[in-house]
C-alpha cells in the first residue's frame, strides 16, 4: 500500500526564510534566516520553547501565510499558497462539528480527481489506518480528544500528500493518549513513507519519532542546532542512547535560556 516516492518528489528546501510582523519594525523578527532542507520520506521534528516561531514556520510551509522573505521550495516549485500535496494537522483538530467521522475525512477529497468509488475506498482505508473502524458515523462531540485527533490525521492523509505537517498535534491530549498516538503516528509514517514535519515542545516525542531534530531558538526565531537521531525503530525511551540525545536537546534549550542577555529582559 505504500507509494513509491522519487528523490525530488517531496524535497523541502527553505532558504533564508525570514518574517517580521507587519508594522513592528523595532521588534525582533519572528523568524530570522531559516535554512533547512528536508529529504523525501524523512521525518523531521522541530522543537523549541514558546515564541520561537516554529508554528509560524509550519504555516509558511503549508502556504497559509504568504508574507515572508527568502524562499521555500517544495519538489522544486516555490511555495506560494496552500496545496493538496502539502497536508497539515492542527493542534485543535478542527473537525467540522456538523459532519460525522466519515464525512469529515471525505470533505478533504472534495477537490481530488478521483471517482466516487475511489474516494469512498480511500476514506475507508484511512479510517482503518488510524484504527477507528466502527466509528464512521460518530460526530466530533461524541469523540474523545485522542479519537478526534486521529480523525484529523486521517483527514490529513487521505489526499496522499507528499508532505504532512503536524503542528503540536498531541499538545492538547493527556500523557497516556499522547504516548499511544505517537506510536500510531510512527506506524503510519513507516507504512506511508511520506515526508513528515512535526512541530512539538515535547522533546521526548521528537526523539521518539524523528530522523532529525531541529532545535529552534527564540527572539529572533532561528535554527540553533540540528541533531541526527540515528536510532533504529521502534525506539526504546529508556535506551541509553535515547536518553543521551534527549538530554543533549534539553541542554540546547536550557542553555539557550541562559544565553538571554540582561538587556533583553524588559
Amino acid at each position, binding site marked *: 500500500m505504500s507509494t513509491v516516492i522519487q528523490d525530488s518528489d517531496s524535497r523541502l528546501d527553505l532558504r533564508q526564510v525570514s518574517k517580521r510582523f*507587519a508594522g513592528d519594525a523595532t521588534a525582533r523578527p519572528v523568524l530570522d534566516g531559516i535554512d533547512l532542507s528536508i529529504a523525501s520520506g524523512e521525518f523531521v521534528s522541530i522543537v523549541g520553547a514558546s515564541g520561537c516561531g516554529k508554528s509560524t514556520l509550519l504555516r509558511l510551509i503549508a502556504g*497559509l*501565510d*504568504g*508574507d*515572508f522573505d527568502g524562499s521555500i521550495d517544495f519538489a522544486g516549485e516555490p511555495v*506560494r*499558497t496552500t496545496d493538496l500535496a502539502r497536508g497539515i494537522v492542527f493542534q485543535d483538530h478542527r473537525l467540522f462539528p456538523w459532519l460525522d467521522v466519515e464525512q469529515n475525512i471525505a470533505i478533504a477529497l472534495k477537490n481530488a480527481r478521483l471517482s466516487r468509488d475511489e474516494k469512498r475506498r480511500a476514506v475507508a482505508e484511512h479510517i482503518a489506518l488510524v484504527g477507528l473502524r466502527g466509528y464512521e458515523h460518530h460526530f466530533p462531540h461524541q469523540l474523545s480528544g485522542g479519537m478526534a485527533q486521529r480523525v484529523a490525521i486521517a483527514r490529513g492523509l487521505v489526499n496522499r500528500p507528499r508532505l504532512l505537517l503536524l503542528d503540536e498535534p498531541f499538545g492538547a491530549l493527556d500523557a497516556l493518549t499522547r504516548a499511544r498516538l505517537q506510536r500510531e503516528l510512527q506506524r503510519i509514517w513507516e507504512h506511508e513513507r511520506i515526508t513528515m514535519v512535526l512541530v512539538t515542545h515535547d522533546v521526548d516525542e521528537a526523539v521518539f519519532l524523528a530522523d532529525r531534530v531541529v532545535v529552534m531558538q527564540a527572539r529572533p526565531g532561528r535554527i540553533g542546532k540540528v541533531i541526527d537521531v540515528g536510532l533504529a525503530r521502534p525506539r526504546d525511551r529508556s535506551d541509553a542512547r535515547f536518553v543521551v540525545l534527549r538530554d543533549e536537546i534539553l541542554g540546547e534549550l536550557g542553555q539557550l535560556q541562559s544565553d538571554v542577555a540582561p538587556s533583553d529582559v524588559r
Partner: protein
Amino acid sequence: MANGFARNFNPALDPGVHDARPLARASLLNAGRSAGWIALPWLLPAVCAALWSLGSRYGWISAQVLPPPSLVFDTLAGMVRSGELWMHVGASLSRVAVGFGAGVLLGLLLGGVLGLSRTAEAYVLPAFNAIVQVPVLGWLPFLMIVVGIGEPLKYILIAHAALVPVTLGTLQGFRQTPDAYREVARVFRFTRSQTIRSVILPAAVPVIGTSVRLAFTKAWLTLVVVELVASSEGLGYLIVYGRQLFQLDLVLASVLVVGAIGYLADRILTLLEARLQRGNPR
C-alpha cells in the same frame, strides 16, 4: 452592540489580505484606499438623499407622496422652536418611563421569586408561559374595553411588554448560576441569603442586563403602536395626525424623532450594561 456591521470582518473569507505583498506600497495609494473606506458608510445615505432631493425638486415625486427633505427639516425645526415637539416627546417619554419602570421592577420581582423558589415556579410559571403566548398587541383591544383609551391603557401595555423579557431573563439568570460557584458557597457555609446576595445575584447580572435592554426595545415599540392606535398626544399621535392631513413632512419628522430616541436609549442602556458587566465573563 452585538451586531457589529463593518466593525470586524473575517479576513479568512477574503484571502487576498494574506497573499504576499511587497512591503513598500505607495503610501498615497494606501491613503486613498483608507479615505474611501472611511467614507463608504455614507455612500448609500448620500445617494438616497440626493435622489430624494432631486426627485422632489423636479417633481418626479409629488409632495403628497414624499415631501422634499428640506420641508421635513423645516417642520422639525419649527416644532422644536415652538416647543410643540417637546410636549409630544415629553408625553411619550413619560408614558414609557412609567410603564417601563413598572414593568422592569415587577419583572425583577416576579423573575426573582420564580427563580429562587421552585415551588413558586411550579405554581406560577405555566400560567405565566400561557399568558406570554399572547403577544402584547393582542391585549390591546381587551384592555381598551376594560380601561378605556386613556393613560392607564398605555401604562399597562408598556409595563406588560417590559415585564415579560425581564421576568424570563431574571428567572434564567437566577437558575443558571454555575454549579461551580454554588459549590464554593457551600464549602464556605454561606447562608441562603448570603448565597443569593454574593453568588446568585452577581452571576445573574449579565442576563438580566440584556433582558432589560430588550425590554426597552419592546416597550418603545409598544408605545409607538399604542399611540398610533389610541392617543391624543405623543409621537405616535403626531404620525397619525400628519398622515390624516397628508402632511407627510410631519410624519417623517416624527418618525425620525422616534428612531433617534430609540437609538439613544439603546446606546445608554448598552453602556450601562457594559458597566455592570465589568469583569463578568458571560
